[in-house]
């Protein structure tokens, strides 16, 4: 059983959804990102999604791109990201990494899987790697006992939903909207439909991401999904803060609000 799976099972037993919070590794600095992720965990985030920054994040909106640019300008490297995984995993919270495919390919697919597992990471979310091109990753994740999360989208056909879910382990990531990352004022109408379509083809837990920014929205998504994934809104707490301490305070407050939200599913 995957460690992420355990987190989903526990939450399900409590009648609530898992809160997944994303943060780029090395943003605003390596130490700053460790502090941020630890603050998120202590304020109630269940699972940390650690994004390895990439120079060309085509699926991300301006907030994540800006944070990634800051991290890269600060010199963060894939090896640093793995050190951060280790530091955050030490809190006991499951840490799943997320990145575009090229950084993994350059690190070496098997070497990355080996080092991620050694650092205590649970698995990898791949926004631009679909199962169709994933043979090497399927083998490496099997060899090193890692989860793998592929994305599905409202535009995915039933056949692709089934095929993609069959290749996932841990959970499936449903992108709630057709679009890039970024908090939105309304959560999507497409997401509940997508989740119910997924339920027809898989028993894996389903995480819903893209567009969630408030406790109320988290409660809405928790009404139909097993996991609520929040990125841009959390990152913005640090981007918009006048100083690092204020950033962490805002981050804790929003994490707590979201954690409260997932405990009150709106069905």
């Amino acid at each position, binding site marked *: 059983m995957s460690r992420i799976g355990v987190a989903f099972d526990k939450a399900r037993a409590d009648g609530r959804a898992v809160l997944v919070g994303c943060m780029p590794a090395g943003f605003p600095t390596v130490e700053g990102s460790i502090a941020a992720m630890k603050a998120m965990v202590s304020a109630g985030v269940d699972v940390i999604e650690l994004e390895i920054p*990439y*120079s*060309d*994040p*085509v*699926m991300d*909106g301006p907030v994540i*791109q800006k944070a990634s*640019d800051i991290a*890269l300008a600060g010199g963060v*490297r*894939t090896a640093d990201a793995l050190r951060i995984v280790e530091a955050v995993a030490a809190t006991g919270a499951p840490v799943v990494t997320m990145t*575009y*495919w*090229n*950084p*993994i*390919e*350059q*690190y070496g697919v098997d070497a990355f899987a080996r080092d991620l597992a050694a650092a205590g990471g649970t698995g990898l979310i791949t*926004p*631009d*790697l*679909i199962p*169709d*091109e994933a043979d090497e990753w399927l083998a490496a994740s099997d060899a090193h006992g890692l989860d793998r999360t*592929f*994305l*599905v*989208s*409202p*535009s*995915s*056909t039933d056949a*692709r939903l089934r095929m*993609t879910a069959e290749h996932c382990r841990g959970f499936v990531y449903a*992108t709630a909207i*057709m*679009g*890039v990352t970024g908090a939105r004022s309304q959560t999507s109408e497409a997401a509940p439909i997508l989740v119910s379509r997924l339920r027809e083809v898989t028993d894996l837990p389903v995480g819903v991401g893209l567009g969630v920014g408030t406790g109320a929205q988290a409660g809405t998504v928790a009404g139909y999904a097993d996991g609520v994934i929040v990125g841009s809104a959390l990152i913005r707490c640090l981007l918009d803060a006048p100083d690092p301490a204020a950033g962490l305070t805002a981050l804790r407050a929003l994490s707590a609000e979201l954690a409260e939200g997932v405990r009150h599913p709106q069905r």
Partner: protein
Amino acid sequence: MSATEPAPAGQLPDAAGHFGRFGGRFVPEALVAALDELDAAYRKAMSDESFRAEFDALLRDYAGTPSLLYPAHRFSAQIGARVLLKREDLNHTGAHKVRNVLGQALLTKRMGKRRVIAETGAGQHGVATATAAALFDLECVVYMGEVDTERQALNVARMRMLGATVVPVTTGSRTLKDAMNEAMRDWVANVDETHYLIGTAAGPHPFPELVRDFVRGIGVEARAQCLESTGALPDAVAACVGGGSNALGIFHAFVPDEGVRLYGFEAGGEGVDTDRHAASITGGTSGVLHGARTYVLQNADGQTIESHSISAGLDYPGVGPEHAWLHDSGRANYLPVTDAEAMAAFELLCRTEGIIPAIESAHALAGARKIAPGLAAELGREPVILVNLSGRGDKDVHTAGEYFGILDKEQ
């Protein structure tokens, strides 16, 4: 001779878009349905006589092809090779790009979409897209790096006159790479009603194949024109390589002609041994960028390195995957040409032939000049080099004027 003559059966890519280890689809799942729809529409269209007839008619009556094949005698005398120029600069909108755009605009119509988006570097693809959008009554948004909107101001004006919205992109290197990122983001968000009209033979499957097939008429025409005017095939074919559409366009019909050497000239900027160039094949490594596995300028962590070229249309840190494969298989040769070499060839063509080339195309001219002595020695006679003059230089008059000190920055 038809510019829309289909590519011979059995050629790469495979059904999943792989050219050997290159190509494929490295995209968000959200785009897969649109890529599948495009692939199906494209295959249906290419096997449909009426589509090809419509495309042929547009190329002939609207774009003005076949473009001329011109023996550039005075330029030839200067470089020691018999140079035949494929005059894509004479096409409507001033570059080879119009062929691809007309093909994709027809497909857009067939798919029932009402909006096109495009990325552009030199602006020639943007102008061609804006033109086709006007002709087909489609909404048109063009993403262009902010740096490029400045050095290609004339083309920005042309696009706006044609009714397109030009969006300057301010992220990253503010050049073609970032324009492509923004266009992809737009596409992910608006894929239902929007076709992403990619401007070069790059990106996820089926774009590299589809763009190649829409531009391969360049080589089909040139091959027949060569045979007609010289009685033989050329010794070498030369083209500049940004994403690689004009190069593939002129190469493709010659790929089976083993005696014809194929040369792609990449933007060497200030030198491939510096960190200021855009030579993805000669100076890059295998990786994934913009939806395909190909050669990429990147650091050890897989972060894209910003490219540099005096030519906006070549200022791109990737290349179409078919070129990556042609390089690995040894069928084509890729060499860098520096900014200075390109500008010297630019000036030489202006002064000897009265033709102002695009700075992109000047890289191909400089490349021909570079390989001429070696070819002559090898063949024991003056070589015949077919050069793709991919576009005209009007858009570059400002850049060139500054480079040669003819214009002040303010003028």
